[in-house]
């Protein structure tokens, strides 16, 4: 499956937020700590003996794996890593005429930019300068976002522990590496299918093998660039899709994709108060304008009514005055007439 996804607002903002690997606001690119270690799994050399599983259980003090007892029925199902088996070997292809069965070892890939570390809200994962991604159980809340996020299904959780459950995964034997020892699985592999070393050198080793035996290998190192690259890398003679690995994945680190949206968050915090208070002001202003208009209309109507009433009153008063004058005139006239008539009589 092809996975090329653009981030929410472009990868730049997201990359700035990823675990201290990219620098914000610059064009610089952090290639990772120089000289960091990695492991190369050559599936063409793996015979499915599961020595690595047994060694892993031993060095991590987990329930022992009895390879002899379990026999080859183990390969009838496709297994995944669990809280008690930090690495498992699966058979992905049966034997054919021209080649033996194909096995692949599963474990935490120790990504260059681990998304388990990015999505952890208590920073319980740490990419060490030496290469391994280490886990700090003393910080873990047990939300299991890391288990959900891992594209390699490599993380497991102690669901049966009621009070102190931990996330369980390959540690790349960080303590042994610091002591100068090999990781348990690399030491135990009788076929030389697991090579430990500096990651840059392992890429050279892988290229050299592919160059020398083009008929034996596919020209691709899984983990060199996938999702920003991993510490564990795989080379194979069959397509990686047949070996349970997604083919054609983007080289963009998952943390950049995962956090691209978080760049929007500060914008919400800064834009919303002004925008919302503006909207509030508009709705208040609308109300005020409506109120003012109503008051104005009422005032106008009152004034008009008063004016009309005043006019009516004046007219009535004038009429009354005229009536009065007329009445006075009439009375005077009448009195005069009566006086004249009386004089004549």
């Amino acid at each position, binding site marked *: *499956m092809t996975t090329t*996804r*653009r*981030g*929410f607002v472009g990868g730049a903002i997201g990359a700035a*937020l*990823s*675990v201290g690997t990219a620098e914000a606001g610059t064009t610089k690119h952090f290639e990772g700590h120089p000289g960091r270690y990695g492991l190369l799994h050559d599936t063409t050399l793996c015979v499915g003996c599961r020595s690595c599983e047994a060694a892993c259980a031993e060095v991590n003090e987990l329930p022992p794996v009895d390879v002899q007892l379990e026999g080859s029925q183990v390969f009838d*199902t*496709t297994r*995944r*890593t*669990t809280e008690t088996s930090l690495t498992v070997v699966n058979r992905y292809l049966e034997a054919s005429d021209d080649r033996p069965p194909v096995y692949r070892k599963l474990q935490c890939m120790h990504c260059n930019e681990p*998304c388990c570390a*990015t*999505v*952890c*809200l*208590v*920073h319980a994962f740490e990419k060490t300068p030496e290469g391994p991604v280490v886990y700090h159980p003393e*910080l*873990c*809340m*047990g*939300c*299991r*976002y890391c288990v*959900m*996020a891992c*594209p390699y*299904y490599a*993380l*497991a*959780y*102690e*669901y*049966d522990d*009621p009070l*102190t*459950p931990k996330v369980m995964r390959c540690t790349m034997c960080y303590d042994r590496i610091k002591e100068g020892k090999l990781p348990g699985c690399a030491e135990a592999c009788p076929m030389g299918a697991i090579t430990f070393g500096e990651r840059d050198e392992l890429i050279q080793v892988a290229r050299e093998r592919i160059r020398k035996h083009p008929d034996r290998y596919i020209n691709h190192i899984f983990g060199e660039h996938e999702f920003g690259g991993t510490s564990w890398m795989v080379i194979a003679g069959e397509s990686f899709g047949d070996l*349970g690995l997604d083919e054609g*994945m983007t080289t963009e680190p*998952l*943390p950049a*994709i*995962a*956090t691209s*949206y*978080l760049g*929007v*968050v500060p914008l*919400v915090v800064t834009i*919303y*108060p002004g925008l*919302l*208070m503006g*909207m*509030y002001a508009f*709705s208040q202003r*609308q109300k005020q304008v409506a109120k003012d208009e109503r008051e104005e209309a009422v005032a106008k109507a009152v004034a008009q009514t008063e004016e009309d009433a005043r006019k009516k009153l004046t007219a009535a008063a004038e009429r009354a005055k005229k009536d009065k004058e007329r009445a006075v005139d009439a009375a005077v006239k009448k009195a005069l007439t009566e006086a004249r008539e009386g004089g004549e009589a």
Partner: protein
Amino acid sequence: MTDVTVDAGPPTVTKTGLMTPFNIISGIILIGGAIILGIRFTQGLAATTNLNNTYPWGLWIGFDVMSGVALAAGGFVTSSAVYLFGMKEYKPVVRAALLTGFLGYLLVVLGLLADLGRPWRLPYPFIRSAGPTSPLFEVSLCVALYLTVLFIETTPAVFEWLGLKRFRKFVGSLTIALTVFGLILSTMHQSTLGAMFMVAPTRLHPLWYSPHIPVHFFVSAVAAGLAMVIVEGMFSHRAFHHQVEITEDQFHRINFGLAKAASVTLAVYFSIKVVALALEDEWHLLASGWGAYYLFEVLGFVLLPCLLFAAGYRERRIGWVRTAAVVTVAGIMLNRFNITFIAFNWNNPTTESYVPSWMEIWVTVAFITFAVVAFRWIANRIPIMYEHPDWKGVH
């Protein structure tokens, strides 16, 4: 839980006795839930849930957290409409919506406490070791703050009930600030809940995965919040009819307004879902089995209620509006389930699968019951469904 008469406000009907059918059934559910949680904290998640290494998140995250937050969006949607945008006609439903929101978020936190491996470390991101690159860090910060905001937004009713005039006046003066803050926090964490899945482009089916999934979550939460206000009103207005002051006609008018808003929101949601298909050029995926299931969700639980809301609004059919609201609420749950554990691990290379255990379902039902009982208990005492006579028409 007995109903008691309140001192102020309209008289409440007083039922006597604890042994009502409602109380008996909810009591059994709650006691059962408590027992299961007891098992969870003594024998672990493995003894109570069907969670596994491939499906680390199940019903408690998919329902209690993912759906719970979306369904509690009614609080910020209605309070913003009334207090910020001046749509005063919706005021009679704001308090109930805010209380539903507060209880909804409380349910989210309870669900989280049950699901977290070490829940007592809940404050660790803020006091011990911060992981600000995590979308979940932002979600927990926002949820913590918003729960506080919702709590303060519920206190005016409490102070009215207690007759604490000065406190009531003080929290009343915070209304606008709290509403703005609530809207900011809601925009952020509703969308960031979606952003949490951006880390899984290979594990979440491409039809559900989108670089715009944060926007999908936010818009669908607004629709869910509106629908939930209608659904909650359906029950509370019947249960508290003796308290309700507005007429049936007024109440229906409010519902039609909400229906109109929900219809527009669902139309926007449907459009951005189509845009997501076009942006990633995923039309061909519709022809697969997953495609058929995706269409079932988007046509049946987004487009259908969108049209039903519109028709109900136009024809003034309260029944259609309520049906559409129930379908929308179910649709949000379906969407969050799909993203959390159904369309998640769609190309699962392992042999593990996930179906919730009966104990997970029981605990979830117990949490919902707890919220309903709490709503009833609070609304029977403090002025939620009506305005306190001393504070009519005040913020």
